[in-house]
């Protein structure tokens, strides 16, 4: 059953990027919704909540909190919700649905079917559990040969960013394997001979866990002590 009452956004962008995140209560009853923004060290920096009528939209007013630093955003509800994020800068737009275990967009093994050598590739990984996780990335070329492997220890509810510097400007694919459940975003910024500037696209990592992964427990509303 894909309905979920928690959504994860690995990034709310800082600086010149304008973020828009809308949440919809998809139940037939009023929903109490809580939004929590953290820095990538998992410190809660902002939170808000409100009641939403059935199928009413809420544009989360998180952006003033992300002026100087990138944040993550967790949205919890006592009823089923869906969400969407658009991150704008000129003609570049990074668009993502809100991710969750129930929607099949959070897992322990994520795959990105493309990596472009001459463009700017960025990856953001968000640990959606409270437990520290070993996270490893495997970069392959288009023929499937492993080109690079690297990893990190990622704090519970923390974020990790890597880019072309780490992946090695390869045309190929990226796989991310984690001990704990994660969501991950790819930001592809076009540049180079065959890719016009001013174009970007966002993608969630595709979950390729073979065995079902048990979603992490959560409480609603989330205590804001950390």
């Amino acid at each position: 059953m894909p309905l979920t009452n928690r959504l994860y956004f690995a990034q709310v962008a800082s600086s010149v990027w304008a973020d828009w995140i809308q949440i919809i209560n998809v139940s037939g009853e009023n929903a109490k919704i809580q939004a929590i923004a953290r820095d990538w060290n998992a410190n809660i920096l902002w939170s808000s909540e409100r009641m939403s009528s059935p199928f009413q939209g809420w544009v989360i007013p998180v952006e003033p909190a992300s002026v100087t630093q990138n944040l993550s955003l967790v949205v919890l509800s006592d009823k089923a919700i869906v969400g969407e994020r658009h991150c704008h800068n000129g003609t570049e737009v990074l668009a993502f649905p809100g991710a969750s275990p129930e929607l099949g967009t959070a897992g322990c093994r994520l795959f990105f079917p493309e990596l472009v050598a001459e463009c700017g590739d960025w990856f953001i990984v968000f640990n959606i559990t409270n437990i520290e996780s070993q996270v490893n990335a495997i970069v392959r070329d288009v023929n499937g040969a492993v080109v690079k492997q690297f990893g990190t220890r990622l704090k519970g509810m923390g974020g990790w960013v890597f880019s072309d510097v780490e992946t090695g400007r390869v045309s190929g694919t990226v796989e991310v394997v984690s001990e704990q459940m994660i969501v991950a975003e790819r930001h592809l910024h076009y540049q180079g001979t065959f890719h016009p500037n001013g174009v970007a696209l966002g993608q969630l990592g595709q979950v390729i866990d073979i065995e079902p992964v048990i979603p992490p427990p959560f409480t609603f509303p989330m205590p804001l002590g950390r």
Partner: protein
Amino acid sequence: MAVAKKIYFPQIAAGGWEDWVRVVNINTQPANVQAIARLDTGQIVWQTSITLQPFQTWVVPVDPAYPQANVSLTVISTLPIVGERHCHAGTEVLAFPGASPEMKTAGTRLIFPETVYGCHDNFRFLNITDYFAFVTVISRDINGFTVRRFTGQVAPWGFWIFTDVEIGNVQGTLEVFSTQPVVGERHLHYGNGVAVGQLGQILS
């Protein structure tokens, strides 16, 4: 089990759009992969196949294969695969993962969390079954009030397209019920060289 052996793309675009579809064999064994393009009626107009080595990628050569009309693309493999589509025109790019029931991106109840008044919204639904699908569409405003409701019929393996004209050019959301599993795409065109593609989120 999230991995799928069949993935679906409701559109390979005709006209001034350039489509790029990549499929990856995510197994440790070679996979036989077949790609099939169909018209909105479900009629097959093109197909090809390949053997992919473990984690090898394949750019499906469907774009030049049938330029005279929009088609859908179904990719079938003997082992699990993932895929991705980018549809380009200038600075506009519509990007979609390959959809499937296993990835929770195909179903009988879909929602799009946004429609935009003043922009151009375009929706298409691919029936991924051998049966006719009867589809009901509900367009709501941002406060959840129903603005429009209409129905359509999609042939087996066919697709159905509608736009702002049908949904009432409303700032709100779109929900779709279908008697058979479908995959839904939204194309949001800002009108200034910016576009966003989204798959319908499954509520069934």
